[in-house]
């Protein structure tokens, strides 16, 4: 089923505030919720919303991300007339090799890709947010209001509002003003970085913006203000539900921990809106004879021989005998050595925590990130 909308996922960012978690992979490829990567969420949302063609714009540390998303069968997107298309920056006959200078520039540089598909609508998404959303309903809203752009918005607190792009709207949800991280916000409607554009109009604005020398070629800073300037119809699409920009180690840890709640706002067990991911061909999870497990989220392929409390465990993780983990998030492939005691930590992918070490602190203000550098404990 085709709805004549192509999704373009912006997945080029590093996510600097995730520190060493993104030293070797882009933020969209960071692990989440035991068996997923962050980009599984927008890709599964696309698949569940009947979008058949998805372009993924990658830039920072793109090798792993490119090879991951190009395996479109993970999300059932390997259809005859659709698929996932990886779009990193490239060299062109008309210009030297150019990195993507901004979110809008990333789309402009791939305008040939869109022209070939000639869609009626383009959905622009960020590859590093965690949420479940039916883009089909948002498209209905876009058509219903005959909008030029529809922007998904989330109601945040006034305090939070100064961290977001804020939409000031009239009583019909029509946007009259956009403010990027306002010091004194006039509205609590934060942009979620999810846009539906009518392609014909978007193309014109992108082409015009590309010619501007002093533009930062960014949707929020340049394209949307240009539309507003011309009194185009911009609609805010209010979204209710779970949405998280897991930008820091603390917020990533917290979002993982929320999965432990019985009434978890991000219900991953919904059979009608599954989040799809890689098939790892792993064994079922094994819980050992001496293990104790309480309040945990554990995927197939992990082996638990030690003691776990309030923790989210990744695929292929091994918790050795007598290890004690409390309030931890353990990413795929990590090994926790025998007798190690780890509290309030986020353990990065494939890290081996040495046997017997003590890591983290139950009263710490921030979550301790464990990487190869500090997995051996205090020296």
């Amino acid at each position, binding site marked *: 089923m085709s709805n004549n909308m192509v999704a373009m996922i912006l997945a080029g960012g590093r996510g600097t505030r995730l520190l060493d978690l993104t030293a070797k992979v882009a933020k969209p490829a960071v692990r989440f919720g035991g*068996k997923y990567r962050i980009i599984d969420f927008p890709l599964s949302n696309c698949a569940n919303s009947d979008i058949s063609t998805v372009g993924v714009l990658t830039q920072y540390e793109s090798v792993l991300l490119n090879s991951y998303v190009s395996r479109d069968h993970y999300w059932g997107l390997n259809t005859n007339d659709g698929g996932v298309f990886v779009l990193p920056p490239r060299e062109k006959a008309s210009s030297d090799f150019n990195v993507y200078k901004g979110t809008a520039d990333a789309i402009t540089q791939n305008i040939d890709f869109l022209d070939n598909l000639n869609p009626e609508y383009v959905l622009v998404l960020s590859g590093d947010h965690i949420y479940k959303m039916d883009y089909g309903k948002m498209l209905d809203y876009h058509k219903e209001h005959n909008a030029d752009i529809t922007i998904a918005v989330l109601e945040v607190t006034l305090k939070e509002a100064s961290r977001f792009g804020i939409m000031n709207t009239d009583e019909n949800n029509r946007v009259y003003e956009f403010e990027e991280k306002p010091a004194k916000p006039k509205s609590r409607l934060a942009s979620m970085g999810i846009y539906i554009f009518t392609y014909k109009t978007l193309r014109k604005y992108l082409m015009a913006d590309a010619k501007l020398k002093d533009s930062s070629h960014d949707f929020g800073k340049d394209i949307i203000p240009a539309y507003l300037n011309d009194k185009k119809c911009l609609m805010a699409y209010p979204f209710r539900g779970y949405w998280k920009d897991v930008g820091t180690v603390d917020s990533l840890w917290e979002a993982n921990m929320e999965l432990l709640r019985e009434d978890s706002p991000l219900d991953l*067990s919904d059979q009608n809106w*599954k989040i799809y991911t890689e098939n790892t061909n792993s*064994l*079922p*999870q094994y819980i050992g004879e001496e293990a104790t497990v309480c309040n945990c989220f554990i*995927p197939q392929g992990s082996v638990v021989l030690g003691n776990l409390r309030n923790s989210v465990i990744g695929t292929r993780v091994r918790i050795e005998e007598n290890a004690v983990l409390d309030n931890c998030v353990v990413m795929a492939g990590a090994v926790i050595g025998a007798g190690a005691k780890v509290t309030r930590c986020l353990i990065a992918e494939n890290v081996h925590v040495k046997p017997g070490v003590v890591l983290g602190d139950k009263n710490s203000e921030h979550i301790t990130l464990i990487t190869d550098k500090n997995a051996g404990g205090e020296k």
Partner: protein
Amino acid sequence: MKALGIVNFEDSTASIDGLGDFRPVPAVSFMGRYRIIDFILSNFTNSGIDHVQVFCKEKPRNLIEHLGSGSYYNINSKRGSLRILYGEKPFSSPVYNNDVANFLLNMQYIEADPNPYVILAPSYFVYSLDFNDVLDEHISSGADVTVLYTATRDAKSKFLGCDVLTVDKDKRITAFGKNHGNFKTRNISMEAYVMTKKMLISLCNKAADASSLYWFKDIMADLCGTMNFRGYNVHTPVICLNSLAEYYQASMRLRDYNAAGELFRPEWPVYTQTNDSCPTRIAETAAVRESAIADGCVIKGTVDGCVLGRNVIIEEGAVVRDSVILADAVIGEDTHLDHAIVDKYATVERVRRLEGTDAQPIYVRRRDRI
């Protein structure tokens, strides 16, 4: 690899009571996230076989759904092929529905396959084996047929009803017999045969000439005196899932991580269809130990020594010990299960206590509410 892989169906000596009523043995769930057929198919494709035919005695829907185009098993979607074959003509009596009759009915597909060799094996023997080694030995030995076997010391209690091989010092098979459980040590035929395709066709014709009721193993037994049949001793563990008790006991052994390592080797993955269930949630009220658990479960009660399939729910206060719970089953509050096998989608809520034994685990039927 130069061989066509054929997954044969089992005869009446292998039947998993209860579970087998709803689907053929190859499609029975095993170890939480697998079906029994996944193991032989993974052996085939890991060995480089990408032409596979799965023969199905009856009820093919389940297998068709599970196997799909074979992409889960790493079969190349263009060069390779995974075919599900069954007798498309009705048999005048179920006794005529044997493997040889099905091979003959589908002979055009066997003949059309470009590979000169055939590996014929049933799915209910579960093991981890590289067939390249077997084919190499078959070719260099000059045997007409090479038969895989496992030398067991448990023949009194396991492999009952299986074929027994008498093998001389040159590995030549001199006689076929049946395991009636009278002896401890026996060479059990794994009913896996390696031969040229020509030999398979010729043996099928000979079987049909001898008797319309002959299975492939019957003609093997008849001809072993006159032809060169050789044994290939498989030294790694071999599990034979030919009864509900065997199925149960194998599940109980493989719930232990170290025992499972014999069957699941890192360099020899077992493939299966993915279901995209989320990770399993083990709640604060839960106590879980010594178990193998698939994704998507919610555990609030006690799980001790179990194998849980996908999306199983164990409610608060439930105590489940030494049991196998298949996908989507619900074990209600304050119920006690011991030595039970609960089939898919079943709900246990009214019954407070169910206790089976090693030899006779309690079976709760598919979709039952008790």
